[in-house]
């Protein structure tokens, strides 16, 4: 399988300047090796610190039990599940898996139409202010959401997206991505379901161009 690596930029928090990065349209063994050898130890270190500081469990990172190796293996080769990763400094900074076939829109104005559903999206532990201060890079989330929008456009879904946000991420999807918060979903552990219309995806893209 050929992998497209598109040159991009992340914001290096320490430098307060851009640093060359790449958006890959795949999750390969390289990303999974990074997850195992770099993400996991960093996450463990952060969790030990939260434990020592007696931070309540509900404020611990919600995704601490994710197993990217298993997720990636389960979708390998499936056209319905495109995957993306962000590389910077030779290390994986974020990963995302999409679903292009199983879900439909819930917002009344586009109800029943196809959309791209974000199955999983996660930032590297050192990019999360909640775990490491200061964090290392910003821009992983918006870059991956842009990739999800472009996938939606390519599928003919006009930029429509849906996802279930972890509680600590609601603010990002409501205010940075400006998706519509459809409220908590009892079928999915009361996670908030967010949806992006084609108009909202156009606005998201335009905001980056005019900022």
């Amino acid at each position, binding site marked *: 399988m050929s992998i497209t690596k598109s040159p991009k930029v992340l914001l290096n928090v320490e430098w307060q300047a851009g640093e060359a990065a790449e958006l890959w349209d795949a999750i390969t063994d390289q990303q999974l090796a990074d997850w195992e050898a770099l993400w996991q130890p960093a996450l463990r270190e952060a969790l030990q610190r939260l434990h020592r500081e007696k931070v309540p469990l509900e404020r611990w990172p919600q995704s601490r039990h994710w197993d990217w190796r298993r997720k990636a293996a389960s979708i390998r080769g499936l056209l319905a599940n495109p995957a993306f990763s962000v590389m910077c400094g030779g290390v994986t900074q974020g990963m995302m898996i999409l679903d292009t076939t199983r879900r439909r829109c819930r917002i009344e104005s586009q109800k029943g139409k196809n959309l791209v559903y974000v199955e999983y999206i*996660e930032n590297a532990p050192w990019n999360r202010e909640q775990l490491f201060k200061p964090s290392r890079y910003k821009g992983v989330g918006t870059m991956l959401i842009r990739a999800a929008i472009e996938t939606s456009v*390519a599928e003919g879904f006009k930029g429509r997206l849906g996802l279930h946000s972890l509680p600590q991420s609601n603010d990002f999807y409501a205010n940075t991505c400006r998706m519509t918060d459809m409220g908590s979903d009892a079928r999915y552990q009361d996670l908030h379901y967010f949806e992006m219309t084609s108009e909202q995806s156009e606005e998201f893209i335009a905001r980056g161009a005019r900022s």
Partner: protein
Amino acid sequence: MNTEFDAEWCLNMARLEGDGEIGAGTVAADPIFDGELIEQRQQDEPVVAFGRFVRLMRRRRNMDVEKLANTADIDIEELVSIEEDPHFRPEVRTVYQLSMFFDIPRESLLQIAGLTKPKDNRIYQEAVRFAARSEPVAALTPEERVALETFVAVLNEKK
């Protein structure tokens, strides 16, 4: 697909991101529950009862694995592993989905799945007994049905 959005766009959006988390995905959620999670290294003991239980509950509803996976919204490969591999440990969220679908208290199901420490030793003993009585065969026999229903009753008992 167009992935040619430029560096300036990336940088502009990065500056708008703030300090918030970005994690999303239903399988990612780490549900809050009462039980104490068993450490990974302690999860080596096989849990025969859970796989048998899921299989018989599925067959009682005349469902194949694919239909149950789609209906309960869980990964089909994970469901196969649950039924076939007694050393397999499912995701917490998967056990939650199964508990909702089968209408079984999730704390009990988490215990027999080997994910939480048993608070009720009787459930553990009943799980062992159930595993011993429920040999998998082609059709659900009257004995299996009795074994399954007895175990369901125990799981549903109010403490």
